[in-house]
């Protein structure tokens, strides 16, 4: 039950809630089909999971999807080092730009069809998803954090750290496959 409730219990959403990404494989194919993807990445991706930090997964996903990254986290450096398209652009600004259908993205080549969010404080993601849901209705939004994000189009369930790590491992694997 609590698995698909907002992680912060009181952050109850409205009438439409995120579909749950159950299987890494389906998530991978959904993301692969999503079109141009922007990843909005917060400072919590510096968190270390048992084998490597979350930011490594972010980089892997971005690499596999050819996704761009907007972040102001200290992980910025590592993304640069990985040769990814990354901009120093805060979550709030990045989301704001996504609501503008004329925004041509970080590379000026076209608007994003999907936004993946990771590593922000839970409530901040919640609000950013809410903004995108209501003001960027054509953009698919995806949360890959370990908490259910009701305002995204797609979200994981509330997971334990171990479950989440496993999900990310498999996701990356499928994406690379």
């Amino acid at each position, binding site marked *: 039950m*609590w698995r698909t409730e907002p*992680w*912060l*219990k*009181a952050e109850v*959403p*409205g*009438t*439409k809630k995120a579909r749950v990404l159950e299987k890494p494989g389906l998530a991978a194919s959904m993301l692969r089909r999503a079109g141009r993807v922007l990843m909005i990445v*917060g*400072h919590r991706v510096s968190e270390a999971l048992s084998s490597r930090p979350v930011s490594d997964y972010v980089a892997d996903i971005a690499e596999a999807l050819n996704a761009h990254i907007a972040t*102001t*986290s*200290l992980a*910025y*450096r590592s993304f*640069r080092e990985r040769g990814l398209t990354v*901009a*120093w652009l*805060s*979550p*709030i*600004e990045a*989301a*704001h*730009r996504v*609501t*503008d259908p004329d*925004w041509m993205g970080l590379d000026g080549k076209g608007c994003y069809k999907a936004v993946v969010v990771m590593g*922000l*404080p*839970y*409530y*901040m993601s919640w*609000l*950013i998803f*809410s*903004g995108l*849901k*209501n*003001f960027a*209705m054509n953009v698919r939004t995806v949360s890959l954090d370990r908490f259910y994000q009701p305002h995204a189009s797609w979200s994981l369930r509330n997971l334990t750290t171990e479950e989440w790590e496993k999900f990310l491992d498999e996701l990356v694997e499928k994406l690379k496959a």
Partner: protein
Amino acid sequence: MSRKDLYVRVKEAATRLGVLKDVEIAVDRILYEEYEEPMGPTPMPSIKDLRSWDLTLLKRYKPFYMPFCELCCLCTFGKCDLSMGKRGACGLDMAGQQSRIVLLACCIGAATHAGHAKHLVEYLIERYGRDCPIDMGEGVGVEAPITRLVTGIRPRTLRDLEDVLEYVSNQIVHLLSCTHTGQEGSALDFESKVLHAGMVDHVAMEVADIAQISAMGFPKSDPDAPLVDLGLGTIDKSKPVIMVVGHNVPSAACIVDYLVENGLLGQVEVTGLCCTAHDVTRYNPKAAKIVGPISWQIRYIRTGIPDVVVVDEQCVRTNLIEEAEKIGAAFIATSEKNCQGLRDRTDDPVDDIVRDLIEGVEKAVLIFEPEKVGEVAVRVAMALAPKRRSYKESKASRERIIEYAKQCRRCMNCVRACPNNLPVMDAVNAAAKGDLKPLAELYEHCIGCLRCESACIADLPIHSLIVWAADERFRDEAFKVRSGRGAIKDTEIRAVGGPIVFGEIPGVVAFVGCANYAYGGRDIYEMAEEFAKRRYIVVASGCAAMTIGMYRDEEGKTLYERFPGAFDAGAVINVGSCVSNPHISGAAVKIANIFARRPLRANYEEIADYVLNRVGAVGVAWGAMSQKAASIASGFWRLGVPVIVGPHGSKYRRALLGRKDREEDWYVYDARTGKRVYGGPAPEHLFYMAENKEEAMVMIAKLCMRPSDTTKGRAIKLSHYIDLYRRYYGELPDDIHLFVRTLADIPITMKEEILAYLKEKGWKERPIPDPTLLPRLIRRRV
């Protein structure tokens, strides 16, 4: 000059109504000629009068709405689902609704200050007389920059402030009425009203603070305001202890008065939280101590130390009465805004009230008369203290913590209730196994909201467990904060106006607002320290001013001990309580008026245009929580001062963001020529939520840039921006080309690197404008 209730007896007078004989006349206004500055274009502006300025701002800084709720339940047509393009039964859409709620919040905020100001001015008039002069101290000619700017009134005495507040009240009523079902449908117009609310809020705050400064003898624009004690460790708990919480100082001041008058000073500890704490130490820095910001209320009261809890209004936890009862402390409510269902004892004899409280006949009382509160609080504290020893000395043992922790049923409710998502359950479970460290580590990040406890199915006193686990740290908190100095002197403005406008002082950074920090208070301390070291002018107020005083450097010194309090490069200034914020906005206004000689009186638009384009000031409300914080921020925006909030600030549900990638948004008029010229994205945003501290630091530096910066100034500002950015992100920022206008803008030490970058971007030199957004300020058209 304006006067109220001045009675004149007239034998005979010719009036428009005919000849009056033998009448008594109460004079409203005597039209002196002595306020020589001519009236500007917008005295006492109504909602619509500055609308075009607002729309100009909002065209550049666009609202980005993040609905905090997708429904509306404000009328019986509801609930209406406004999500994904739907409209409510009144026709409102989601953007309209979000901006409407923002307006509602700002109306509440402005009303709170206005109501406070009104009560305060009435009280001070009763006590010090209507003729009590407004006196902001030596070196202050412009005593009320915001009031003059907005209303055109130059207040001389307390009575003049009543006129100002009448205007404020009327505007708030009009603004609030705009939130009624079935009127405004344009989000931008709601936003314009938000800006109006913010502006009048600054007037209300200014009135409150100049009234109390003038009448109660607070430090008058004093750079050397005394250092006062801060933190639990400064309290002598062997003495009777009174705890005051709130924002309206009269009761607290009367407690101090009673001590002084009865030779009891030093025998009773007067300890405060929130703004009442600021203000009572401004009233008498020797007689009172500051415990901490809003988030310290519960941890303090649960030490059992306070004998008497006195609450007034605003930011007071609404169920302190229960907490006071738990520790056997007497409770006194003093404000009609916060009556707690108590019996009104105002008209009862002091002896009776004191007796009832001491004997526990009543554990809590309501007394509206500050003098009476003063006497009751002191007498009760002195009588109760000896009886309450056991409470004060109770210290949680390691065993007790562990015993509690063992009762945890691992329901996760605490984690899922914690606004900061702290790993409460894991920490409790570590404690159950004997490891208190994880609990203790939460101390710094816990805002003391008690939501974990409220949600706990095992009824554990979780917050207390955290504080107990960090007991030593908490008990030892002993710091210094400079007592709120009040306004900035005209002379200071004259000295720094140039360096600020020309950019040699890279900026004024104001740390304001509440203690709803996402990751603890240390962030804001580090920011303040960083910018003070970089010789920005660092200003603080309210809870933020306390928080930045709660950390020490290696030498054991707090920021207030390390940095001077004069409005100059490298200062760390506490202006005072929340209502002191207009001294910050007022300083920006004074720069325009005193340094740049722009007309002040009722000349809002021109001054705001000046500030936006020339005064490199930025507000940081890292833990902003309240509706007041919302309206204070909007007052800064309308004046052209950007504000950064922390992550929780996203719950204000909209940002006002510039788009540096849209060149067309950043054109200004060159006042010399009338040409539209590129001014650069400066300031880039008006209301911005930072996700992390590093981002905030970089953004602070960036938001201090202004189109009018001289090349020298721009080079200095850029060097701080680039330096901070590089420290955290290891390279040059990718938008330098938008900020370098001429080669002379380039910081000399980074010249080559930047030139290479600029070349890559195809950068070309651009002229430095004499920037304005107001066509009417163009001096000569080409």
